Each structure stands twice: as structure tokens, then as C-alpha cells.
């Protein structure tokens, strides 16, 4: 997408921005009138008012009024611009944020998390900062350039042409400085990123760095990145200064032209003293825009790039869509799930699941086992419609999954992910995420029913204990406990559990087992099992391998099938469990 195209797309998305900007442009023109007022009044006073005090007073008063009007208009313009810009950008942020959440897991998994965050933060910030810092200057500069030229032409077209000629080479020179300048500042940003990456590795990996005695080497690596940043900063600065000086040089040449040609014209009676002096003032109005252009254009490119990255998100069509009005609600009661020839492949075409056909009876407990990458998790994500299958059909209680309204679906079908992600808030708030209207009493009761009341009371502030970033003040097992209470409050008819793999301390293990038992009671439960006991106690075990469902049946039946995948899994399982 070109800069222009992204601008057009952006304007279409945020209509307020375009309208507000046009008002700002008009105000900008008025705002620069005051700048031209000084040269004009200099001319008038020198030519007509020098001998007449009252006339001079009139001119001065008129100019003062123009200057004050300018002040007011400039203020109005700035406020208007900022209000419109910030308002639209806030909307854009919110839209992009929502869109990211609406994208399916399939899309989300393909993006780096940090890059998603920057779409709604840093990328939008570049646009906002450009408008705040440079946008106002840009508008005023352009308007100033136009008005100064008009005023000059009014006094003397010939001299105006000379001035323009003095600045003309800049049209050729500036792009030749600006292009490497833009590249160079991009370099600075990239190298700053590398530097921060290197420093952050040294900090996060501190224990490894020290215990392996590679402090010097890691320090040298950081040094190298620091030096690179310094070098490209200096290079960028140098280019910027050259561009700046080029403007100053052009102004110098223009002034020489004014002095020489002005006198020659004046002798011919074509220029008065006042007009001559006004020209000297007007030329200074040319310099600032040229010098600002170097910074502004640079920032403009950043802003356009930031804008483009946000728009990319808006251009991604959500592939898992809420049927909304036209959809159906799930019938009440336990849910039955059916997969008919379901396949899934990633956008890259890599197949993950092929031709899976299976029924999960209402109210049954099903365990899914298989190696990493066998398709277990994909199965769970399809079942909960976090992604849609590439082929085949999934129904819940005979209703096609894609026709179930999200409202009904998310209420009845809940997945408890493996990592037990928690928000940086209290336990209370995290649990309430499962049911927003749950009262404190409901929540306390949930802990009690799940046998976790003693654990909760052992925490420093009970329900009001802060769990820290990603829940990291709690142990992995404790995070799971909170996730279970959260799911219990949501009270789904179909529960999809992804058991944690990492070992947690024994006391928590026991609590987890008990709480899970209560949670799954009376619900259709599909568990991605990492524990032998889960599989043993399930009504049915589904065994996946390489994206296919290879075995199904009760644990005892499957174990009896000698040499089968499950029998082998089970044997190694037992070996590790009872090794002592």
C-alpha cells in the first residue's frame, strides 16, 4: 500500500478526521495572516506613515489586531486539530483492539504478541505525535509559504521570481538529503531495538550469563550495539544539519538577490524603500518551512508507516464470525458433540487434523491423549470454535457449531487453557471474569464447593490477594486453581480442559485433583490428558496420532489391545509412575 492509499483508507475508517482536518486547514491560513502582517506594516509605515504619526498609529493598530486574530485562530486550529486527531485515533485504537480479539486463534498465533500490542500503541502513537508536534507546524508552514509568496508577488513579481529561484535548487537538493535521512533514522530505530534486545538479554539471562562466566563477552556484544546506535545517530544528525543549512544558504542567496536587484529596481522606480524592507522580512518566512520540512517529512513517513500497520489489522477479515441474529441458541441441558470428517490445516497448508469423525455423548467424560503435535489441542480449539475447520462439520446437540450465537456458545462451552492465564488484578476480579454478575458470596461459595476455601483463607488477603503480572505471584498450580474456579462460575454445559504438563508441588496437586473432580461433575467434559488417572477414569479415551484419531474406547479396552499405541503409552506411563 502506498502512503497515499493508506491515508485514504485511514480517512475512510475515521471520517471525523478528514472533516476536522479541513477545518484546521482553513484556520491555518488565517493563523498565518499575522505573520505576514509585520512585513506589510513595515512597508506601509516606511512608505506612507513615516511622516504621519496618526497614519502610522492606524497601521500599527490594524497590524496588532491582525496579530491577535492570528493568535486566536492559531489556538482554535491547534485545539481543533488535536481534538479531531486524538478523538479519531482513540477510536482507531479501540477498533483495532476489538478486531484483534475477533480474529481467530489461527491469525493470532501467526502474529508475535508484541507486534500486536504495538499496533494499538506505538503505531498509533507515531500518528498522534506527528499530528501534535509536526502537523500544526506543517499546516502553518505551508500556509505561510503561500501567503508570503502572494505578498511578495504583490510588491514585485520580478523580485519574487528571483527569491523563488534562490530556493528552487532546494527542490532538487532536499529529497537527496531527505531520503538517506529517512533511511538513516530508520536505522537508528532498528539499532536501538537491537541494543535494547541485547541489554534485556543480559538482564533476563543474568544468572545464566554470570554462572557461565560470559560477562565480558555479553558486555562486548552490548558495546557493539551501543556503538552502532551512536554512529547512526551522528550520521542522521549530520544529514539533518545539512538539510537545515541548505535552507539557510538559500535564504542568504535570496537576500543578496533582494539587496542587489532591489536597489536596481528601486532606481527604476519599481520598488519603494518600504517594499524593499518588507521583502527582507518576507524571505525569513521562507526559511522556517524549508528547515522544518526535513523533520516533518521524516516524521510523516514514520506516521504513515504506523498508520499502515494499524490498517493491516483492520484489513484482516475475522474468519470465525458470530452468526448473530440469524443464528440459533444451544438447547438447554448437557451438550452432545459430533465431529464429521473434520480436517484442519494452517494458512500455510500444513495439515494438523485429518478426517476426524467422533461423537461425544452428553454428560460423558472424555480424555484425549497423544504426543505433542498429534492434534489434541487443535481438536479442543475446533470444539470450542476458537478456530473453524478447513473441512467437515461439527455440531453441538445437533446444531451446527457455526450457527450457534456467540452469546449462547460462550456461555455453554468453556475451555480452560493449560497455562491458567490470570490478569494482573485480585483473585476476586480474575474469578469474576467467568461470570461478570457473580456476587462476592457466589464466589466465596464456589471456592467452598470446590474444596478450596482453606487455600483461599491461607492467602495474605484472601479474595483480594493481588495475583501479579500474568498471575506470577501465584505458583503454576495455584493459577490453575483460580482458573478452575473461574470456569466453575461460568457454569458451562460443555467443559474443555487442557491439563497442565509441568509438575507442581504435591499439596497443590491434590487440591487440583479434587477441584477438577467437582468442576467436571454433571458436565460433558473433554480433557486433554497428561495424567494417567484422567485417562483411567474417563468414560472414553480418544487417542490421536499425527492428526488422526487412531483409537477410541474405554481405558481398559484400549490397554487390552496389545501392541496398540495406547497400550504402549500406558506402559511407559506406568513405568515412570511406579519406578520406585
Amino acid at each position, binding site marked *: 500500500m502506498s502512503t497515499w492509499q493508506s491515508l485514504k483508507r485511514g480517512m475512510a475508517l475515521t471520517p471525523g478526521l478528514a472533516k476536522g482536518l479541513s477545518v484546521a486547514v482553513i484556520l491555518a491560513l488565517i493563523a498565518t495572516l499575522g*505573520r505576514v502582517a509585520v512585513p506589510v506594516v*513595515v512597508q506601509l509605515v516606511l512608505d506612507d506613515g513615516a511622516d504621519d504619526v496618526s497614519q502610522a498609529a492606524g497601521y500599527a493598530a490594524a497590524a*496588532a489586531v491582525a496579530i491577535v486574530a*492570528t*493568535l486566536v485562530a492559531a489556538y482554535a486550529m*491547534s*485545539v481543533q*486539530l488535536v*481534538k479531531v486527531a*486524538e478523538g479519531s485515533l482513540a477510536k482507531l*485504537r479501540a477498533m483495532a*483492539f476489538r478486531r484483534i*480479539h475477533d480474529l481467530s486463534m489461527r491469525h*493470532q498465533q501467526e502474529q508475535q504478541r508484541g507486534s500486536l*500490542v504495538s499496533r*494499538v*500503541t*506505538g503505531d498509533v*502513537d507515531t500518528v498522534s505525535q506527528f499530528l*501534535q508536534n509536526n502537523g500544526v507546524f506543517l499546516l502553518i508552514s505551508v500556509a505561510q509559504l503561500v501567503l508570503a509568496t502572494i505578498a511578495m508577488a504583490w510588491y514585485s513579481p520580478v523580485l519574487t521570481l528571483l527569491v523563488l529561484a534562490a530556493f528552487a535548487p532546494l527542490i532538487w537538493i532536499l529529497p537527496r538529503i531527505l531520503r538517506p535521512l529517512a533511511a538513516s533514522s530508520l536505522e537508528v530505530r532498528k539499532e536501538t531495538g537491537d541494543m535494547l534486545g*541485547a*541489554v534485556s538479554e*543480559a538482564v533476563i539471562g*543474568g*544468572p545464566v550469563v*554470570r554462572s*557461565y562466566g560470559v560477562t565480558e*563477552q555479553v*558486555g562486548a556484544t*552490548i*558495546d557493539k550495539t*551501543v556503538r552502532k*546506535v551512536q554512529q547512526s*545517530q551522528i550520521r542522521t544528525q549530520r544529514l539533518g544539519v545539512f538539510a*537545515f543549512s541548505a535552507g539557510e544558504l538559500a535564504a*542568504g542567496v535570496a537576500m*543578496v538577490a533582494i539587496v542587489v536587484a532591489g*536597489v*536596481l529596481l*528601486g532606481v527604476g522606480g519599481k520598488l519603494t*524603500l518600504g517594499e*524593499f524592507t518588507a521583502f527582507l522580512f518576507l524571505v*525569513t518566512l521562507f526559511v522556517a518551512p524549508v528547515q522544518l520540512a526535513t523533520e516533518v517529512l521524516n516524521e510523516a513517513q514514520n506516521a504513515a508507516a504506523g498508520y499502515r500497520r494499524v490498517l493491516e489489522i483492520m484489513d484482516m477479515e475475522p474468519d470465525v464470525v458470530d452468526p448473530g441474529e440469524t443464528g440459533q441458541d444451544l438447547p438447554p441441558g448437557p451438550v452432545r458433540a459430533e465431529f464429521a470428517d473434520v480436517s484442519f490445516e494452517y494458512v500455510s497448508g500444513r495439515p494438523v487434523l485429518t478426517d476426524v469423525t467422533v461423537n461425544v455423548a452428553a454428560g460423558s467424560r472424555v480424555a484425549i491423549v497423544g*504426543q*505433542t503435535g498429534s492434534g489434541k489441542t487443535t481438536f479442543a480449539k475446533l470444539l470450542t470454535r*476458537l478456530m473453524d475447520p478447513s473441512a467437515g462439520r461439527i455440531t453441538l446437540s445437533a446444531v451446527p457449531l457455526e450457527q450457534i450465537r456467540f452469546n449462547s456458545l460462550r*456461555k455453554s462451552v*468453556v475451555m480452560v*487453557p493449560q497455562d491458567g492465564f490470570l490478569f*494482573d488484578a485480585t483473585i476476586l476480579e480474575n474469578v469474576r471474569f*467467568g461470570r461478570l454478575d457473580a456476587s462476592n458470596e457466589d464466589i466465596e461459595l464456589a471456592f467452598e464447593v470446590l474444596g478450596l476455601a482453606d487455600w483461599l483463607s491461607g492467602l495474605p488477603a484472601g479474595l483480594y490477594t493481588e495475583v501479579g503480572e500474568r498471575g506470577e505471584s501465584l505458583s503454576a498450580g495455584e493459577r490453575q486453581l483460580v482458573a478452575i474456579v473461574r470456569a466453575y462460575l461460568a457454569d458451562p454445559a460443555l467443559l474443555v480442559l487442557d491439563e497442565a*504438563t509441568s*509438575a507442581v508441588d*504435591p499439596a497443590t496437586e491434590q487440591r487440583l485433583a479434587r477441584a477438577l473432580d467437582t468442576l467436571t461433575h454433571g458436565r460433558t467434559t473433554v480433557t486433554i490428558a*497428561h495424567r494417567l*488417572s484422567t485417562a483411567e477414569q474417563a468414560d472414553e479415551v480418544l487417542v490421536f496420532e499425527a492428526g488422526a484419531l487412531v483409537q477410541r474406547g474405554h481405558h481398559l479396552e484400549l490397554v487390552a489391545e496389545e501392541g496398540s499405541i495406547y497400550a504402549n503409552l500406558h506402559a511407559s506411563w506406568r513405568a*515412570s*509412575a511406579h*519406578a*520406585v
Partner: protein
Amino acid sequence: MGRAIADEPRIFSLAVAGSVLFSLVTVGTAYAFGAITEHVVQPALKRDEVDVAALVSAGLVVLAISILKIIGILGRRLAGGVMAFRQFARYRRRVANKLVRLPAQGRPTGDLLSVANSDVEAAWFIIMPLPFAVGTVAMVVVAIVALFVTDWALALFGLALFPLIFFMNMLYSSVLTPRTRTAQKLRGEVSAVAHESFDGALIVKALGRGEHESVRFETKVNQLRDAQVSVGRIRGLFNPAMDALPALATVAALFVGVVRLQSGAVTIADLVTVAYLLTAVAFPLRSFGWVLGELPRSIAGWERIRGVLDASEGPAPGTTPLANNGQPIRVDVKDLVLSYDGQQPVLRDVNVAIPAGKTIALVGATGSGKTTLVQSLINLLKPQRGEIQLDNVPLGDIEPASLSERVAWVGQSTFLFDDTVAQNITLYGSFSEDEIWRALELAHAAEFVQALPDGLNTRLGERGVSLSGGQRQRLALARALVRRPALLLLDDATSAVDPKVERAILKGLRSGVSETTVVLVAYRRASISLADEVAYLEEGRILAQGSHDELLATVPGYAAVVTAYETNMAEAPS
């Protein structure tokens, strides 16, 4: 500031010289225009004929002035920039150097990163406009003197205008700074909400809470918008006001000038000079505002830098080399007391003897002090009391290089560098490819490394994101194993590895190529059972040490911890 000037005296002088030159030329320009008006333009217009020599010299004067001005700008800006960028680099290097050598200081990574990045810039950015501000002082002094020489009445305008602009600037900074700070803070909060929300995308989706999250995000976004608008308002008022002030002064001076002209006190040329001067001097005066506005940020940044640089590094590293005799290391821990906060001890009088070549498992509930003990064994933590000896040499006396050569540690959370697999394993050490593969095989990582697109030369993403937890742990293990350590510390280092694989790895270690003393922290019973001996910890004390069977029979707490796995905690391959 003084420090920066002391660090780069020559460059600073150059920048100031450039700035003073620029300032003088700016004032000079006004007088040159006055002179040209009086001696060249007015006579020419009056007599209606051109004095070619005068005209040419006028042109040359103007040209010379602008060349001098450009030289001034180049000097000031280039030197100022170089100075600031060198300061950035100098302090980044110092901060990074410190961070590499010093434990995390109990501060979040993001915080330390911002010291190396934005705080360094905040502290030294002020260097850039500083020479400009110094030069401007010269300009104001010269301009006021020059104005008085021209005409006292007109000079009053300069006398009134310059301080007024100066104070407006100070006012501007003091009004704007808290607002920009609020906006900056909110920007951080918006980012935090987005980060967290996308981090928890799965749970948000699984519970259908997209709307709820949107509302949460929008609330913050709207707060940010309001803060930005408030910043914009202040800027929108002050910037035009700062433009209007000199313009109004110029217009007023013109009027007064005409009055003075009538009384013959000034000439037309003087009028041109004064008008030009008032306009030209106003802009550089704003550089004061930049310097003053930056000052609080600069000081805050500098204080945060000092906070990192001044942190104590503890006792000097030891100098006794640990003999490299190819034999496993014997470990003796005597009366070890360690506390993080200086009050609540995490280790209380720990005594353990680990015979050379044995494998010992540390077992205990969460918070019993296992990790603390392991980390003290490699000097990552310094005990308050007691002593650790490796082969009878006190740990504090051992030369760090020889320690890391012979002792390898693999922690609970794996850290991989954003680099190739090979570099992550060798970590700047020189090992042959064969040695690397042997270590990978021992860590049961060879198979998946072979399957990577570029094998050993595959670049891992930031913090190894492209690998599963178990794979990352196995690479970290290979990193330790390739060194053939005489003492290997495994702190729950295989927790995310498939239990079957974990067992195979540990078995492999025992029959491994070199004789090694192993200290391992583990939860899984299968792993514990591979140890020669078990040390059972409870609340920072070693309660019992002996074989697994002994402890099982005699220590009820141990039995409770270990048998908890047996009933329904057996794990399946994932």
C-alpha cells in the same frame, strides 16, 4: 550537565563557539540591513542612480553574513549532537556493564531497560540545546546594548520583550510538564492493558469476553485521548502566543519609531534595524525554554542512572583457581544462613556434604529453600552466614572464571539467547561440532535440533519462543552438559520435559562420559529415585539426608511429599 562538559570539553567549546557566532551574526544582520538601508538603498533611491561599488559591497556583506551564520549553525548543531550522542553511548555502556555484572537488583526488567534507554536519553538530551542557550545569552546582552546605543525608547521594547519571552517559556514548561507526564503514564497503561489482554487472548475468547475487554481498553484509551488533548491545548495556546509577542513588539516599536523619527532621534535605517532585531532575536530565546523544560526530566533520568551505577557489587571476586583435575567436585555446605530481605531467613543453618561423583536430590515443598540453596552453590546468591566449599576451597575465594569452567547450573526457567542453537550451547566457548551433538544427544535434544530448518545454525526467536518449553529446557541442559562439568546443578531443569524423557536424560547423565557430581531439584518421584541420596528440606532446614528408602521409612514429612505423586498424580506422556 557539568559532568557532560567535563567529559567532552573540546566539543562543548566548539558547540558554544558556533552558537555565539550564530548569535552575533543574527544581531549583526539587523545592523547590516540598517546600514545597507542607510548607505546604499536610501541614497540610491533618492538620487535615482546606482553606486555599483556600494551595491556590490552590500551584496558581499549579506553573503558573508549568511555564510558565517551557516558556519555557526553547523558548529553548534553538529558539535551539540555529537556531544549528546557520545554521552548517550557512554552512559549506556556504563549502565549495561553494571547490569551484566550485577544481579537483577530486584527490579523488573522493563524498568532496567528504560534506564539504559529512555533515562539515558532524558538525562543527556539537554546537552543538545545547551550550547544554543549559552550562545543566546550572548545574543541578548549584545542586542540590548546595541538597542540602547541606537535609541533608548526603542531599546525599552527589547528590554521588555526579552525577559517576557523568557518567563513565558518558563511558565510554558511548568504548565506543560505535568500534563505530558500524565499522558506518558497513560500511554504506558494503555500498552499494559493491550499487552495483558492479548496475552490472555485465549481465555478472553474462551469465555467470550471480547466486549468486556474492549470496554476496559477503551476506558484507558479515552483517558489518554483527554490527556493528549489537554497537552495540545497548552501547546496550541503558548506556541502562537510566543510568535505573537515579538510581532506585537515589532509593530509597537514601529509606531514609537515613527514618533521618534518626527523628533529626529532616530533614522529610517535605525527603524529597520530595530524591527528586524526584535523579530530575529525572539526565536533563539526559546532555546532557554527547551533547556529549562528538559531540566526536571534530565535530573530524574540522571538519578535513575545513578541508582543503577551506584548499586554495590559486593565483595571482590576470589582469586584461587579451582583445580581442573578432571575429577568430580566435592561440596560441603556449613551452617548456611541466607535471607533476601535481611530478616526472614530462607535458609537456616543448612549443613550438607555431597561426596564427589554422587547424585543428590533436594526434595521439599514449595518455599522450602531448594532453589535458594542451589543458587548459592554457584555464587548467584551470597549467604549472610556460613560457608560453602568446593573441593575444600571456600566458594568466595574461587576465581569466577575457573568456577564457571567446572560448575554448570541449569535453572528453573530456561533462558535462551536470540541467537543460533549452536551459540546458545557453546555460549562463546570453543567446542567442536561433535561435542555439541554429543551434549544434545545426552539432553535428548539431538532429534528435534536435526529437524530444525538449519540444524545447529537455526536462529531461535527472542527468548526461544519458537520452541516448546520442554525443548528449551533440553537445550539449556545441553548447554550445561557440553562443558562436561565436574559439578552439575539442575534446579527443576526438566520439569516441562516428558517424564519418560526426563528419566532417560537423568539415567544418561549417570552413565555419562565424565564423572560428575549432580545436585538436582525435582518433584517427580521417578526423577528422585535416580539419586544416590536425598536431602529433604523443610522451611529452610535440611531435615534429613539419606537414601530414598530410608527417608521414606523414617521421615513422615518426606513420605507425605513423595507419596502424594503416587496415588493419582502419575503423569502421561504429553
